[in-house]
């Protein structure tokens, strides 16, 4: 996995991270490719913006608030709240899931929620869930 750390790990910084462990740490910079009926396209994450092109939605270089929601049963969830809407972009929150299997194999999934409320409630029936390769 390509990780981008926003701060040099120093004792002082580590203390700060301990207070706010999620925000701004370990942003999974890179590109993730999806395919199929709904997911054909690419999720591109830079240090400052997120672009996600899929079959029926197009989000271009949108700034985000980032949080690492941590590891739950082998799945790390990275959360991107997009700072503003954009014509043609259906999603306001994007989760990127990194799953590590017991044999060490890693798979990725991108999930787009229409609203922040949908993301908070994990309303998958209102979301696009795409397997992606990194």
């Amino acid at each position, binding site marked *: 996995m390509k990780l981008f750390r926003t701060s040099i790990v120093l004792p002082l910084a580590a203390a700060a991270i301990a207070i706010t462990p999620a925000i701004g740490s370990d942003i999974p910079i890179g590109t993730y490719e999806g395919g199929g009926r709904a997911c054909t396209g690419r999720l591109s994450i830079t240090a400052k913006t997120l672009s996600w092109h899929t079959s029926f939605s197009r989000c271009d270089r949108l700034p985000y608030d980032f949080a690492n929601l941590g590891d739950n049963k082998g799945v790390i969830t990275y959360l991107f709240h997009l700072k503003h809407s954009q014509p043609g972009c259906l999603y306001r929150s994007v989760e990127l899931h990194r799953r590590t299997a017991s044999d060490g194999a890693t798979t990725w999934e991108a999930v787009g929620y229409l609203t922040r409320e949908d993301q908070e409630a994990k309303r998958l029936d209102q979301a696009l*869930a795409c397997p992606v390769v990194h």
Partner: protein
Amino acid sequence: MGNGLSQQWMDTVDRSQTDKRWNDLDTNIKSVVDEFNTRLGARLRTSGFKKLDFRLIKAMVWTESGGPDSSAWKTRPMQIGNPGDPGLHELLSNETGGILTPELKKELQKGVATPDSNIKAGVAFLLMRAATFVWESVPDPSDVKGSVVEVKGGDNLDTIAKAHSTTIEMLKTLNPEIGNGKLIKAGQRLKSRRAQIHRKITGWVEITTEFAARRYNVGDPKYKQKLDYCLSIMPP
């Protein structure tokens, strides 16, 4: 392997060889495929309907969802009906020539974010894409006797058809003397019978991996190769 697929994608699908959960939707898929094959096979035999292959639909589920660890596997394993996808609207707002029963249409209108409903919608959409249709005037079975209509000044076949819940084709069939562009006159008496225009299936394109890639998939250039790869590692 020379198929242009990414190693990570193939490694993921290869897990189906050891992880039995990749077969967890088999019962759902088989049930849906059997239901369509039985119903359409009986009703539409004359249109050349060929039975759907369960393995092809399973390959589509694997390709679309990415397998049992994914969220899509538990919600929309055939990835139809996602936000912005016009496919479901196309399926539910058009006449399908009998591919959807009224009951199934009602069920899908409630939502397609469960594996069972999503597989039903995905298979129905695939079938709709594979069917060739014509529009046909169908008499209303409840109106056996029909009626006689007197033409008034300013009438034409279209206004008469609309006013009497029938079709121009039905009027021409019942009144051969008005066919071939001949004019109707005020005071003329025409036979009429209630009828509607319906979409009828006249033929089918064979559903192959190439067809699914072209008509179900939206833009994935490797879709056929993915389906072929799934089929190559799937038990017969």
